[in-house]
């Protein structure tokens, strides 16, 4: 078959399709979104009738995938790194129950925080859950490793974590496909001794997971993802994930011959690492993420023959590149042109004509009249309201935190306590916090900026919008006359200011739904009417 030019994220999708998955479960999040989108695009082609609609959040996604695995079929879960925090309960416990059909959790980390609030390293979760973790370094390897991850999962009866980072997720290269494997038959198993995690079962299952660890390490020792590039000299490099690419780039560019051990499957292959350390006087540990294994290899008292992010050889934060590796390897810095002083930053901004703009114009007008004008916000395009000219919001922490932080601040006595959240984030993690506020009759005003889509990640369907959001708020017990709907348009500015003023002044839970379609998705629909209904 011919090579296709695929993003790393898409290579995972194709690998999973060809591994015979029956479902993908995911919540959008940069840089993981394109995995699921690729599968959704293939859905109509006839060859793959794979269940692929967006989940409400990463936890529901992970649990549904475990259910599909329970029923004997293969399933894929995709999320960005912080999504795994949301799904952690399901994920960690799926390692205790184990799986039936192959279950692969693809997590995309974002070192350098291109589109994220932290650069947490999902390999810590792999260690925490004690499951195999794969971290290939090229698009082709991603395709192959994803296919193998499902086999590995079924042979060990464990979920497998597949970790990528932004750079590989969003880089294209040629990928050669091999013949697809059919889906599994439905074969649900009665195994309450595994799946009913009451203490007596959980203790046995946990012991089983511990007993499996030597087998996991044996798999790592023989895995093609852990490969040695032989070489000579006193220095060796232990290159994790795509750090391998940068190391090899520098090695070739400068005609160097040091040995490189690439790590692409965890837990660590102890023998291979011991062999590298016994061959070399010192080892540079290059990890695309936290210095997770550098710390472990140094030990508590600090190994003197190890270099890496912890001793400053490599930067402590951010993604690696060939330049940082060159410096770590002691190569002279090249003379290059500098960025001229006249080059000013160009931060992202809300689109011209976006409804969030009109909402913020009304909201800042109202809030500027208040002595305290704190606005708790959330994760989405509307987070850009933190930047000039709006400077309208004062927090953005995690999905759903706008409502609950406003609640806590109101509990502390802050008046008014205002939250701004999008439709998709509201259903992801906002609804439960709203219920807390209703039960406590906390005086908060929750503004749901409903643009009918998950816009920041490119316009995926939201779990609920419009009348369903209204119904959810009613159902959660918000008083009918304090659920107001406005249309964030210039022409409605005066009216919107009036509604917001009234509800912000209300001494109880109020919800203002600012409802207007995202202009980007409206334009997409115009270009392609057949696209997303």
């Amino acid at each position: 078959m011919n090579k296709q030019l695929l993003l790393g994220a898409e290579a995972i999708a194709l690998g999973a399709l060809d591994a015979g998955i029956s479902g993908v479960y995911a919540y959008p999040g940069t840089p993981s979104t394109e995995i699921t989108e690729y599968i959704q695009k293939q859905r109509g082609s006839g060859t793959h009738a794979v269940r692929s609609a967006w989940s409400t959040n990463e936890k529901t996604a992970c649990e549904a995938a475990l259910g599909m695995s329970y029923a004997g079929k293969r399933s894929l879960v995709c999320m960005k790194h912080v999504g795994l925090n949301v799904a952690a309960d399901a994920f960690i416990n799926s390692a205790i129950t184990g799986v039936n059909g192959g279950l692969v959790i693809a997590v995309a980390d974002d070192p350098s925080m291109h589109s994220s609030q932290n650069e947490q390293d999902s390999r810590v979760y792999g260690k925490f859950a004690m499951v195999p973790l794969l971290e290939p370094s090229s698009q082709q390897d991603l395709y192959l490793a994803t296919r193998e991850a499902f086999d590995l999962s079924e042979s060990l009866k464990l979920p497998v974590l597949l970790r990528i980072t932004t750079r590989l997720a969003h880089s294209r290269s040629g990928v050669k496909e091999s013949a697809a494997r059919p889906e599994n038959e439905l074969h649900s198993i009665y195994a309450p001794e595994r799946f009913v995690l009451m203490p007596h079962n959980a203790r046995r299952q946990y012991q089983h997971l511990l007993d499996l660890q030597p087998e996991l390490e044996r798999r790592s020792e023989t895995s093609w993802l852990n490969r040695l590039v032989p070489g000579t000299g006193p220095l060796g490099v232990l290159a994790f994930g795509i750090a391998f690419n940068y190391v090899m780039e520098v090695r070739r560019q400068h005609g160097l011959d040091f040995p490189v051990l690439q790590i692409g499957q965890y837990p660590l292959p102890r023998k291979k690492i011991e062999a590298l350390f016994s061959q070399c006087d010192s080892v540079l540990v290059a990890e695309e993420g936290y210095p997770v294994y550098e710390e472990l290899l140094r030990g508590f008292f600090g190994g003197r023959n190890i270099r890496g992010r912890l001793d400053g050889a490599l930067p402590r934060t951010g993604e690696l590149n060939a330049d940082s590796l060159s410096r770590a390897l002691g190569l002279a810095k090249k003379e290059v042109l500098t960025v001229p002083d006249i080059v000013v930053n160009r931060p992202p901004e809300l689109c011209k004509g976006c409804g969030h703009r009109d909402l913020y114009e009304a909201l800042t007008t109202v809030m500027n009249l208040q002595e305290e004008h704190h606005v708790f916000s959330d994760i989405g395009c509307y987070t850009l309201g933190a930047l000039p000219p709006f400077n309208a919001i004062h927090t953005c922490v995690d999905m759903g935190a706008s409502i609950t932080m406003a609640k806590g601040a109101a509990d502390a006595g802050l008046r008014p306590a205002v939250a701004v959240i999008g439709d998709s984030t509201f259903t992801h993690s906002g609804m439960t916090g709203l219920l807390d506020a209703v039960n406590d009759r906390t005086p908060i005003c929750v503004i749901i900026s409903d643009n009918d889509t998950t816009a920041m990640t490119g316009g995926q369907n939201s779990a609920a919008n419009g009348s369903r959001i209204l119904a959810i708020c009613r159902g959660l017990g918000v008083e009918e006359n304090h659920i107001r709907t406005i249309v964030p348009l210039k022409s409605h500015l005066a009216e919107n200011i009036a509604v917001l003023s009234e509800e912000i002044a209300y001494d109880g839970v109020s919800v203002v739904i600012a409802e207007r379609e995202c202009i980007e998705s409206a334009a997409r629909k115009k270009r392609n009417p057949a696209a997303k209904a």
Partner: protein
Amino acid sequence: MEINIILAGVGGQGILTIAAVIDMAALQSGLTVRQAEVHGMSQRGGAVQSHLRIADREIYSDLIAEGTANLILSVEPLEALRYLPFLAAEGRMVTSTDPFINMAGYPTMEAILVELHRTGQPVLVNAAELAREAGSVRTSNMIMLGAAAPFTGLAPEALEAAIGRLFQAKGADIVEMNIRAFRRGKLLSQQQATAI
């Protein structure tokens, strides 16, 4: 051979369309491609870039090392300057001279031109004007690709074939218009080369 190209612009300007054409042409020419791009928050009117690497052997890094870009192709003049540390000593700069101003402190065009000329022989392209002449301002990215074509290491025929495939679904007229734009850009680049 190895060609490293930085594509630069502002989110929404469509540099990924240029990347898609080059990718396709390189792959069809039997070469290896790696092309890193920006998705997510910056796409909303922020600075965006793509690192595009083409070689006749395996490519390891998705990112271009500093001082090793053979070409900076920018669809916006200020954005061209943002990536100067990547440009190789003998690398070429091809940029549109149409400013996209969506922030405070945008420098004067004169100041930008002074900096652009530090790169030796920049190819400066009045892309929007030429695109309108080619039939639509929407072809300005193909004007830019044409202007950069001589520095991509790819045959113009391969690039034109890729344009044909990319715009195929939009009909023969659109394909023809984009190829016309590509050739217009290429002509300008040749004229500027002979003028020096």
